[in-house]
């Protein structure tokens, strides 16, 4: 069985609809192996599609992940008697266009910094996130155990809901809550300790 396009190109290759339809139908029945093959199979196609929408680098990968999450959360809307590719392409287009609209709005509100905005040559001056409280917080988060760090990143930094984070990490919502609770406790100790126990 073909798992989908094997190479990443700027032009999305024609997806093998029949195979993907079968894999999705099995995924809807709870067959994890088929569902994994489907998601792995559609990922290069989604990358190519995102590339056509002008995305690249980390932004492109974020967009692909966003589409994969959407596919997962609305997989019950796929009708197994219909071809899979139009459904997938429609979902991807919706999400990619949403992302582009957000980007255009963001660009419209932003003013690019020029040399005149730089105060001192030191890196910390122009990148405050690397210095001061923010820098310490970043270092403290980086020092957390893997599970706690991921939970903080998803729930606090990326502001994902418990449900989304649970789907993305495969952990239960309760486990995520516990991880975040422990992480915050640990961060308090780390940051408080550096301030002389305050």
């Amino acid at each position, binding site marked *: 069985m073909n798992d989908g396009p094997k190479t990443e190109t700027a032009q999305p290759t024609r997806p093998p609809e029949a195979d993907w339809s079968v894999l999705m139908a099995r995924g809807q029945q*709870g*067959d*994890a192996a088929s569902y994994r093959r489907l998601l792995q199979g559609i990922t290069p196609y989604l990358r190519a599609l995102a590339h056509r929408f002008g995305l690249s680098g980390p932004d492109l*990968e974020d967009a*692909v992940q966003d589409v994969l999450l959407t596919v997962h959360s609305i997989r019950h*809307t*796929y009708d197994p008697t219909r071809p899979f590719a139009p*459904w997938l392409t429609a979902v991807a287009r*919706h*999400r990619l266009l949403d992302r582009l609209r957000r980007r255009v709005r963001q660009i419209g509100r932003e003013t690019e910094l020029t040399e005149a905005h730089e105060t001192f040559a030191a890196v910390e001056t122009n990148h405050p996130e690397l210095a001061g409280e923010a820098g310490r917080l970043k270092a403290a988060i980086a020092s957390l155990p893997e599970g706690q760090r991921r939970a903080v990143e998803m729930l606090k930094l990326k502001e994902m809901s418990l449900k989304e984070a649970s789907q993305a990490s495969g952990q239960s919502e309760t486990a995520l809550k516990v991880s975040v609770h422990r992480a915050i406790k640990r961060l308090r100790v780390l940051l408080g300790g550096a301030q002389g126990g305050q």
Partner: protein
Amino acid sequence: MAATDQLIEGLTRNLQPVKPLRKPGLRAALWSGFATLVIAIIAAVGGSRADLAHALPEVTFFVPLIGSWLTGVTAAVAAFQVSLPDRSRHWLWLPAVPILLWGTGFAVSCFSNPGDILASLALLPESACLLTIVLTSAALLVVLLPMLRRVKTLRPRLTAWLGCLAVAGFADTAHLLVHTEQDSLLALTVNLAPALALVVLGGLAGRKAI
């Protein structure tokens, strides 16, 4: 890319089976059947207008009646279709002809006997007709909203707008069957103002409601 692989691993680890949604046409038929049943109950309990048998053959009554009911059915079909990501947005136009029948049908009869529009608007909040429309709309929305929310649609605003149009159509069918005063500006106001309000509300609040 490693993060994407991790995400796929996470999504498949505790995969639960899901039941695919029924065909949108079938879901629309089920809900339209329910709506028609509600209208029949309201007409039976509230008492349909006494001159119903006499009014039915009249074009000025029959056209808006059938137009409002068809608007409800076609808007429901369109709402369930556009709620799915792979269906065309052009389903939006399905209720266009029934809306024309519904609106122009009794607008013609109302404007032939105009009355006072300001007096009509002033009477609106006390109107028993309005109560019929509000109660019918509430009963239909209670069932329609969870059906549409279950889709987790990527077009919430359009879906909500069409859903509200469907509710407004059926609610007005109930109103036309129960109340007799259909040939004045008051009737026009009572028929169309709540429908317009509902449709506007659907468009505005759709993103949050659906």
